[in-house]
């Protein structure tokens, strides 16, 4: 199958069951809402080394936020509901509460599972914290040096899908990167998904094994152009000297598939030679998202 003249490999992305939460971060200005969002999503590229994956989902207009201020929607993923809760407490406490003028609200109010966040962070108030209940939601006012940090008592946590991906193969670094950037731009318009790697693109794809006993993962040698002549079964197409991967986490399988589809289309129209996906033979992840199936 092709998009224009770009080959779409007949393969699938292997994705995993995860748990997700959504934070709505607001501040007096776009600048400080974004500062908190960047901080809270820092060092959250891969569950393998960061305990969670997180990214900015969307910028929010003041009419879309609980307090009528500029906001940023952030999604955070981990392998269990309790894991999501722990990461939320750590990251909201260290990255949002510390940021000037911010507040942080739950963005998944209908989720069945709830993670205690404000109800944990409130103790920072050392007894001066104040609880407020409005429209059925409990908020905590924690006194801080520029006024108060307002945080919701509990955040919704729901089942989600992590590890959707596409691999973009191109002639050289610049053309492949341009194709990947175009894909990221297109995928970023889809609500309910994030691309957790730096500006959405990853160059160090991995396989789930290593020759070293202490490591669980190692470089995805099958897609390293410099090893084309060395490794058996190299997947780097003839004429391709660069591969970039885009990893997608989403609130459900359909959203991940939607993002993969628009990403493939944008990459194909912006210089990609071939588009593939990463998988482990189907033996690890619950979801197998077939590239051809997405385009049919």
């Amino acid at each position, binding site marked *: 199958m092709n998009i224009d003249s770009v080959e779409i490999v007949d393969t699938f992305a292997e994705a995993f069951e995860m748990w997700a939460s959504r934070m709505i971060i607001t501040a007096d200005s776009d600048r400080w809402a974004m500062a908190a969002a960047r901080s809270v999503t820092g060092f959250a590229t891969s569950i393998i080394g960061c305990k969670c994956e997180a990214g900015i989902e969307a910028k929010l207009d003041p009419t879309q936020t609980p307090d009528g201020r500029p906001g940023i929607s952030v999604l955070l993923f981990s392998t269990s509901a309790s894991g999501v809760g722990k990461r939320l407490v750590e990251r909201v406490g260290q990255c949002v509460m510390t940021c000037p003028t911010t507040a942080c609200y739950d963005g998944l109010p209908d989720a069945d599972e709830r993670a205690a966040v404000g109800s944990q962070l409130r103790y920072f108030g050392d007894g001066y914290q104040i609880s407020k*209940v*409005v429209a059925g939601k409990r908020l905590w006012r924690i006194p801080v040096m520029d*006024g108060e940090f*307002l945080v919701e008592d509990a955040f919704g946590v729901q089942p989600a899908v992590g590890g959707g991906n596409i691999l973009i193969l191109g002639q050289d670094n610049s053309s492949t990167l341009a194709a990947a950037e175009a894909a990221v731009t297109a995928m970023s318009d889809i609500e309910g998904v994030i691309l957790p790697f730096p500006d959405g693109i990853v160059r160090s794809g991995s396989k789930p094994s290593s020759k070293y006993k202490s490591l669980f993962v190692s470089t995805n040698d099958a897609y390293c152009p410099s090893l084309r002549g060395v490794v058996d079964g190299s997947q780097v197409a003839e004429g391709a000297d660069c591969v970039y991967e885009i990893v997608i986490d989403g609130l459900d399988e359909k959203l991940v598939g939607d993002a993969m589809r628009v990403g493939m289309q944008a990459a194909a129209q912006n210089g990609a030679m071939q588009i593939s996906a990463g998988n482990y033979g189907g033996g690890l992840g619950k979801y197998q998202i077939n590239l051809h199936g997405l385009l049919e």
Partner: protein
Amino acid sequence: MSLKLRLETQPEVPLEADCLSPDRVQGLDAAAIAKLKVFYGNQQVELGEFFAVDGSGDEAIHIEGDLSRVKHVGSGMTYGHLKVEGNVGAHLGAGMSGGRIDVSGDSGDWVGPEMSGGRIVIHGSAGHMVGSGYRGSKVGIRGGEIIVFGNAGNEIGNTMRNGLIAIGGDAGDFVGVGMLAGTIIVLGQMGIRTGAGMKRGTIVSMQDIEPLPTFSYDCQFRPTFIRVYLQHLRALGMHVDERYLTGAYRRWSGDAVELNRGECLLFAG
């Protein structure tokens, strides 16, 4: 089919009609509802002597007429929606724990005394003791919301423990007297002795007041939670000036004769 009642005979003395609640009429037909007992003065009579009843009891009740002399409407309500087209008497929603009451006109004294949940919305004005505890009670309302678009009388939120009381117009004296926790917001003028004896809780005033001498000034700041509350009031249909969302507030802590953990937040522009 929802239940519709229309006041046909105006009572000369107050009628105590705590049966006017979704909990009490659920599953009853019109004839059975008309036979429900109400107190008329010191006598028990049937509801049908005053109201025309149409439909059967379910989660929604629609009542029309000037119910100024009908007390205890919605008392003990736990769910459903009760709508009054007109005025309503005292003790509206007393002790309610869920559901919603809407009144298009005015209400008498004691709106939602000792309620623990649900929402009461008065589109006109209310009398004294909105959201208060009864005399002798240590605790007033423990949750829920009372929204009054117009004015209210004295002692609103007396000993309230939780919940929200919002007054779109003016309020009388002793707002939040003996308050234990919760939130009171008054967009108009307040009377004297606001927050007297309060232990915890928040009283927000958009007009300047003179705090009691047992309150101490803390700072001027922009509390984000007020924006959340005011957005909520806007969503319920109350007009709230944009400047109240974006402006600063002066915080006074008190009452020092009690725990000194309450606060009055006064709009500063």
